[in-house]
């Protein structure tokens, strides 16, 4: 699946989050079905998400939201955008 809908490469996404660090969700640039599914799981704008371990090779990766861990593939995680934080790598 290819969800490259953003085209904006400066905005950080879940896929850019370092292991063990957290950030706040800003937007899900995914087809409606997919984003609604993720939102019911707790990936709503404003939610705090923590990145965890990944499969060998870095994909898929575990993200914890509201205390529950989910594995997401990179194609999806890279379209879940984060609220920019000052001092984050850019």
């Amino acid at each position, binding site marked *: 699946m290819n969800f490259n809908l953003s085209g904006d490469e400066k905005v950080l996404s879940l896929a850019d989050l370092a292991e063990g660090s957290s950030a706040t969700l800003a937007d899900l640039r995914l*087809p409606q079905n997919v984003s609604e599914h993720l939102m019911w799981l707790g990936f709503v704008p*404003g939610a705090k998400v923590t990145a965890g371990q990944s499969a060998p090779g870095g994909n*898929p990766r575990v993200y914890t939201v509201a205390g*529950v861990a989910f594995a997401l593939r990179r*194609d*999806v995680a890279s379209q879940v955008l984060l609220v920019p934080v000052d001092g984050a790598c850019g």
Partner: protein
Amino acid sequence: MSCCTPTAVKPAGGVSRAGHTMRTVAVIGPPNSGKTTLFNRLTGLRQKVANFPGVTVEHHIGNLVLDGVENVALIDLPGIYSLSPKSEDEAVAVRVLRGEMPGTPRPDAVLLVLDSTSLGRQLALAAPVVALGLPTLVLLNMGDMLEKHGGHLDVLALARQLGTPVALVSASRGEGLDAIPRFLASAAGPPTPIDLPVLESIPACHAWARKIEKRAGFRAPALPPWTRKLDAVFLHKVWGGVIFLAVVIAVFQLVFTVGQPLSNAFQVVLEQAGRAIFGWVPPGVLRTVVVNGAWKGVSSVLVFLPQILLLFLAIGILEDSGYLARAAVIADRAMATMGLNGKAFIPLLSAYACAVPAVMATRTIEDKRDRIATILITPLMTCSARLPVYTLVIAAFIPDRSLVPYFLGARAAAMLSLYLLGFLAAFVTARVLKSSILKSRDVPFVLELPSYRWPTVQSLGLRLVDRGRAFVVRAGTVILIVSLVLCGLTMLPLHNGHPSDIQSSVVAKVGHLIEPVIAPLGFNWKIGVGLITSIAAREVIIGTLGTLYGVDPDSQSSSMQAMLHKDLTPAAAVALLVFFAFAMQCTSTLAIVRRETNSWKWPALQFSYMTILAWVAAFATNQILSRLWH
């Protein structure tokens, strides 16, 4: 057990339905909320598995077994995250709850099961559920964990917010469940929630959930760090993969090394039973039908039971402990190259033993299209029933010489090539299916990783009973019918009341009839008869050829090899191996695919596809090799 004292309260207001006895109660909740554990606790073994008409979604129905409750049927609906009917599971749940599912009465009440230790996210589902207007009891499961690890919740306050009774329970310990009969006796009306959000806005539902969670004074428990610590090992960059491989090999070893002797021992028992039946039934046609038809057919399926139960024990431990989800994460990349996801891994591995348990193991795949694609390719993996056929033909035609000294012999290489051939066919078929008729429509791979838990004996036991029963009953009945038909065809027509021998039977006639079709593959009518009878099960061809050649296949396999040499050219022998690598010669698998997909469409497609593939591949093999080797 003070923690789990039920705190069911009467909702403020609400229409009273006094005098109404509730008869159908739906159990719903998100995956991993302990819903199934609760259902098993409430119904015990008095439950049955059923499919809703026209869908692959399966559900359990059981009678509620609680003091003071009678005639209440409990329906266990699939685990869902929302009531927006995007997935098949959710659509089914919504249709059942609205009373739109044919054959299923509209539930009189709902038991909503939520995990109290991660209430925040789970409460969002309560919004669409209470909005349905059905009398609802919210069961906050794992109440023991909440209390034990310093969590807190004002159940009464939460009940006020939701406008419906709430009880803190522990399904695994059976605590607090007396709230259920009290709720059912209370004639509770529709929920009257405070400030229900706009259901179409998912963020609004989550905001609402956070708000009422706060008003109910929820404090999350400080759960032990086991899950985090174990994930650091099981998903470690190096050790994660190593442990994964070790687990895979252990499961494989369990099914083959432990399961095979068990199956062999079981076979001895079955044969003795067969001899006993032989003694009871008077000689004649009836004896042949009962012993050679019915019992041989049924026991050829039953013999897989020990291995199937072992495999499901292993899968049960992996799944209930939480490791299976981690294994799926690790296997995901490899499975993605086939167009599938990590959850397809265990079924495909199991298929090397037998496609029947593999098809049943696909139940862990939530995405229905992925599940059907996996079901369709499992019989292409080299199962153990192909081994006797491969062994016989390879021994007859491949010289026992070394290709790589001390490492690889010609026969082993031939066997290995057949395994590879099956895998490649499965790989290509999966790719084709997943990019055409079974393409997933915007369903991302999202896998919840539950906390690690100790599997309970009760849950494992129920799973084994459930799977074992499904296998024996459903596959057994189809096998029984097919075996009887095939057995009948080998004996008909009757001559003066005596059955034909196989050479002059209907089956032999069909063998002659299909000879023009199989002649280009290099097969004569005898092989044709073997191909027909082996539709029941692959290894049956050996017994059939043995009968046709008039030799005992067990004691005289060398003479059988000699006979095969007369009937097959080397090119045709390879074509026969290729045919068996691809052909769907297994009624048990077809029966179980029919059962698991709840439709004849998929087994029919599978049978046609694999038979055509087998014919084309065997044709090409015979034509090319017979030209090369002349």
